[in-house]
């Protein structure tokens, strides 16, 4: 029987997973919305970030939170190099070329990580203050999941404020809605995109580190979760922070619930649902009308 506390704990677990999905995917949504660039390699940055975070914690002994910050900075810097040297050449290329290039990049990174670090799964050692259970009054739940929900909500709130209330956020929104008009108004799209790309990749790195504990971290990561990240972005709508937030939470909770109560065909439903949703609203559940 499913009782109240079961539903609550299912919700909490799903929300925690959804937060990780959100943190990884939000950058992808904004960069895809800005440039219309089909970036299948976004998960690769999340994986690289996860490796930076896990390995620096293990070998340099730095704490979890500083490691997350370090992962963000390193991957943001690395992604700027990739963006300037490689991605920028393909903004005007066909979709097929973008798909090929980013699949190639995924293969390359998978192989590089396998060669340098090894093919095995990397275990993240949570600091002691995040281990164990937390008593929420009604239900006891894993401290780490609660931590993820709190951190994810804070990040979502911060991003929303940045998106809606700052000058740069307004520029990004303008560029997503109508890039040519934004360019004619004097917004430097190239620079805007570079910064967003770096920021989004850095967020993906944090997501990779935060999720490593329960969705795993191995070289195949970018391929395994590619469909999930893309579904979140497609359902949430391109270039919509709030849309991606709700889409990630819905998919996180659904996936968690289906895997628990319908372990056989859970993923099947997610795919079927995504197909139906995209047919019904090709611009995403929360996306605006395409211009």
């Amino acid at each position, binding site marked *: 029987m499913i009782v109240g506390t079961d539903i609550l704990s299912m919700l909490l677990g799903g929300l925690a997973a959804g937060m990780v999905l959100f943190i990884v995917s939000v950058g992808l949504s904004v960069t*895809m919305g800005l440039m*219309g660039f*089909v970036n299948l390699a976004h998960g690769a940055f999340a994986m690289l970030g996860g490796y930076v975070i896990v390995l620096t914690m293990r070998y340099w002994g730095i704490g979890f939170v500083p490691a997350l910050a370090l992962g963000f900075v390193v991957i943001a810097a690395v992604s700027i190099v990739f963006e300037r040297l*490689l991605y920028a*050449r*393909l903004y005007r*290329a*066909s*979709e*097929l*070329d*973008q*798909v*090929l*290039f980013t*699949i*190639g*990049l*995924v*293969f*390359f*990174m*998978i*192989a*590089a990580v*396998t*060669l340098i670090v090894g093919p095995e799964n990397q275990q993240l050692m949570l600091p002691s203050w995040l281990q164990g259970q937390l008593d929420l009054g009604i239900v006891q739940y894993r401290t780490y999941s609660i931590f993820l929900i709190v951190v994810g909500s804070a990040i979502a709130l911060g991003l929303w404020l940045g998106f809606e209330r700052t000058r740069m956020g307004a520029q990004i929104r303008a560029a997503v809605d109508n890039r040519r008009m934004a360019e004619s108004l004097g917004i430097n799209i190239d620079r805007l995109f570079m910064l967003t790309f770096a920021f989004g990749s850095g967020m993906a790195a944090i997501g990779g580190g935060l999720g490593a504990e329960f969705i795993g971290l191995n070289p195949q990561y970018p*391929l395994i979760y*590619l*469909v999930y990240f*893309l*579904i979140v972005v*497609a359902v949430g709508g*391109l270039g919509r922070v709030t849309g991606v937030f709700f889409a990630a939470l819905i998919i996180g909770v659904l996936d968690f619930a289906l895997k628990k109560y319908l372990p*056989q*065909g859970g*993923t*099947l439903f997610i*795919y*079927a649902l*995504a*197909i139906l949703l*995209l*047919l019904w609203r*090709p*611009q995403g559940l929360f996306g605006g009308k395409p211009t």
Partner: protein
Amino acid sequence: MSAPGLSEHPAARAMVARHRLRAWEPLPWILAFGFYFAFPNHLGFGTDLLIMILFALSLDLALGYAGIVTLGHAAFFGAGAYAVGLLAHHGVWNEPITGLVIGAAVAGLIGLISGLTLLRTTGLTLLMLTLCTMALLEEAANMGEKYTGGFDGLPNLPIPPLFGLFEFNPLYPRVQYLYVLGVLFVCFLFVRMLVYSPFGQSLTGIRENVLRMHAVGAPVNWRLITCYTISAAIAGVAGALWVQTNTYVNLTSLGLDRAATVLIILVLGGYGRLYGAFVGAVVYMALSHFLAKVYPTAWQLGLGLLLMLIALFARNGVLGLWDRLMGRLLSRRAPP
């Protein structure tokens, strides 16, 4: 006959002649026959190679000619494969030639149904939908463990002799090789005829300028759906061949790996040019046959680099590079 002045126009002559057989066109088939006699010990590899050529050819029809950017073409390969595999495993039907027809019909039907719904979309949505459709089928095959064998698939399928005469010998796959070569030849003739027909020309038109095709009154959506269905059916034949010659079916027949592989093969050779599938498959399969088993990680690294280089510098694949090279040589020899 039209006015003599007009039909003498170079463009008119090129258009009239473009479907004619070129002198080099028998070459791939001679080579394929030569392979049979020259490498009797590598015919298993040769059979796989021919199947991948057929699969890439089917993708060329959708991607190269009609411009449908799909990430889920392995769905149809897998549909044909599982159709034949399931029928053979459960003892319903296992005759090879009719098996191909069944594989084509099942894959074509799935192509038709998904084409009817998916092809209204474009861009990222279309990519996502093709990807999700494939993932859906893969998950369904994984889930229906009772019938499909789940992750392990169905091994040791009973495939009777071809025409009741020629036994498929797993150790000396001579019959398989010639069988697949014959099927590839028939399918190739069909695709060649198709792309040079008015139908094929209208597909190219849709790829190049969909607005104009709408404006001249071409039934764009139906053309795309028809093309997608035919392409799916041919991919289904390739999948059916794969099962019949390997006598097993498993999940590798419809995953993202296979979809990515066939895409790589096609762009490596050059898409939208019929023979790109041949060149790409030969290059890719030969490289992977010799490198992938010995240095799997280095192979993936190289493959990734290769893909990035193709996307950045060689958008028309090996054949495109060849054309450019020949164009440069010829223009040097004959100064304007």
